């Protein structure tokens, strides 16, 4: 809405016409660079640089391989966790779905199925789990936190119940080697290609389609989104289904990488995913967040853990740092908001910096 001047009566010395969308009131470079997500990216770069300088063995292909293989499940699941949290929901059952999918893969391969077909069935199971989550949340109007706490226990219980306390450890060598294989000599695992493809898909979906705009709209206000014609329930269910399927895919990878299918695989993974996603700038209240921040958040925690472990710092300190980082980053956001609200705002029509 730009102000128009009446040519008949021209008032003297009008201030210049400016757009009043604060989103577009700043130059492009500022909009891209001065965001919460970029702060995390900057932090990630800083960690990588400092670690490479301080630890002679950090900047090696082996490190990159270990780091990326370690965080691959979290990277994959964060792609779907981010949109869910942007809509204001949450999915705590992802770790249990990884375990359940791992058990499904193990049981099927044990009875003679091939890995690709077992993997497909596992992803299907994940999708079904997502449908259960989505229906309970939309049809019954239950809070996602409660539903996914219940399905966390249920899916984990099914995984442990199906397999008991044993583990299945014989997998075709071709596939387990493929899961850990690298691209040439670079040390980058081949599974990163899969991740890159999925990342591109989700970036397009979230940031360049109307479905993605709908996701943000739902997070900002469900009612407003519904009145704007967005099919809120269908969107939420789709996101839960995607989350279940993606967790199952991560479970297939996890099983092949560790060559071990156990009922208690990936216990606690959901917390790591949420911590990384929140660190990456997604607001728990919904409506805000971007995928580049999320990826940076996951890599940041992964790089920190790897560097500290290499330096001989024990893994518990890494947990303390993760916890403090998580709390600090969300508090910092609140704090900045509070500081800004205390500043006296000049009453002009021009967009202020």
């Amino acid at each position, binding site marked *: 809405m730009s102000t128009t001047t009446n040519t008949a009566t021209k008032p003297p010395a009008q201030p210049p016409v400016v757009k009043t969308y*604060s989103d577009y009131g*700043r130059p492009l470079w500022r909009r891209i660079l*001065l*965001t*919460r997500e*970029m*702060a995390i990216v*900057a*932090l990630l770069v*800083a*960690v990588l640089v*400092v*670690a490479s300088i*301080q*630890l*002679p*063995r950090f900047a*090696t292909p*082996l*490190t990159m391989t*270990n780091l990326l293989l*370690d965080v691959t499940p979290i990277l994959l699941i964060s792609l779907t966790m981010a949109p869910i949290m942007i809509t204001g929901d949450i999915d705590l059952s992802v770790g249990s779905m990884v375990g359940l999918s791992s058990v499904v893969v193990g049981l099927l391969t044990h009875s003679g199925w091939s890995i690709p077909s077992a993997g497909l069935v596992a992803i299907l199971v994940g999708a079904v789990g997502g449908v259960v989550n989505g229906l309970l949340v939309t049809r019954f109007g239950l809070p996602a936190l409660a539903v996914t706490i219940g399905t966390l226990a249920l899916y984990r219980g099914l995984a442990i119940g199906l397999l*008991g*306390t*044993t*583990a299945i*450890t*014989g997998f075709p060598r071709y596939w*387990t080697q493929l899961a*850990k294989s690298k691209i040439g000599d670079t040390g980058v695992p081949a599974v990163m290609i899969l991740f890159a493809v999925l990342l591109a898909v989700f970036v397009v979906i979230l940031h360049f389609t109307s479905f993605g705009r709908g996701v943000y709209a739902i997070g900002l206000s469900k009612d407003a989104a519904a009145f704007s014609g967005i099919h809120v329930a269908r969107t939420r269910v789709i996101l839960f289904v995607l989350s279940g399927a993606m967790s199952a895919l991560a479970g297939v990878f996890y099983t092949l990488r*560790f*060559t*071990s299918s*156990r009922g*208690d*695989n990936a216990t606690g993974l959901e917390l790591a995913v949420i911590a990384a996603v929140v660190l990456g700038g997604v607001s728990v209240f919904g409506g*805000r967040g971007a995928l580049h921040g999320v990826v940076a958040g996951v890599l940041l925690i992964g790089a*920190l853990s*790897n*560097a*500290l*472990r*290499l*330096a*001989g*710092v*024990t*893994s*518990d300190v890494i947990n303390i*740092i993760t916890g403090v980082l998580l709390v600090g980053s969300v508090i*910092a*956001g609140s704090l*900045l*908001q509070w500081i*800004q609200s205390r500043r006296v705002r000049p009453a002009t029509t021009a967009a202020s*910096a």
Partner: protein
Amino acid sequence: MTHGTLRTGLRAASAVAALSLLLAAGCSSSTATSGTSSASKKANLAITFLPKNLGNAYFDTSDKGGKKAIDELGGTYAEVGPAAAAPDAQVQYINTLTQQGVGGIDVSANDKAAICSALQDAMTAGVKVVTYDSDTNPECRNLFINQATADGIAKVEVDMIAKQINDTGEIAILSASANATNQNAWIDLMKTQLASSHPNIKLVDVVYGNDDDQTSFDKTAGLLSAHPNLKGIISPTTVGITAAARYLSTSSAKGKVMLTGLGTPNQMRQYVKDGTVTAFALWNPADLGYLAAYATAALIKGDITGKTGDTFTAGTLGKFTVGANNTVLLGDPYQFTKDNIDQFNF
């Protein structure tokens, strides 16, 4: 949300400063030496012990034995491990050790296949891999240091419980984690021996305490309530037998349900003295760790390659020969009773 340039810059700068301090502190406490490839002139005697989990009395003793050996050899000792006995946790440690370029890893495996590819990566990078106490698949390690033959361990426990319950009745087994290679080997042999030599003893249940004290404690309670006619419990894990003994000693089953298995004298002393347990077995875990360290050093120095028939000297323990399947045997299990338990301190 808008952020001021200054604020974002300040945040990034302070984060970098904090991280540099943190990493500097971390570096100064680093225990890994700067061992290069195994082709270096001086043998890289940085050996790290990776037990099933930390906070376990049995591994405390064994790894201390390893430390003693490494000190005698002039190497560098380190011990790392997960807090809970899970195989995937061990994988991360193995990867880090490979990255750090240690000379040798001595590991007690939580699962015989899950840590295999990480160990193979380590071996490809020149690290010598020796398993002790609990083995992996043979292609993932250079040597396995076995405390006693699996047969011998199973037999001594079965014989003890048979004697304690007069060769008749129901028994159960309280094991560690369901995947631990050594546990499964012993349990299978126990089942065979029970079937062939003790037809009047019936094994009614096998439960898993995961080498966690609280879980083992609660599982013992569960066993007693689910099987009212239980006469004996075998617990071939030091954490399990201690927890079970503690439960039994304050319950009405004390003296009625017999308990035996593998335990350390220090942890079991009060229960032997108060009558909850009459006899249990073990070997000297310190000797096990000692032997493992010497074997690893011999591999690193190139004295042996790990194939059957190789011989090496393990300090004060004497000469050892590598047996079939690249295994080195420590000795025989030893029975502890209230008559001899005070002679030991581990």
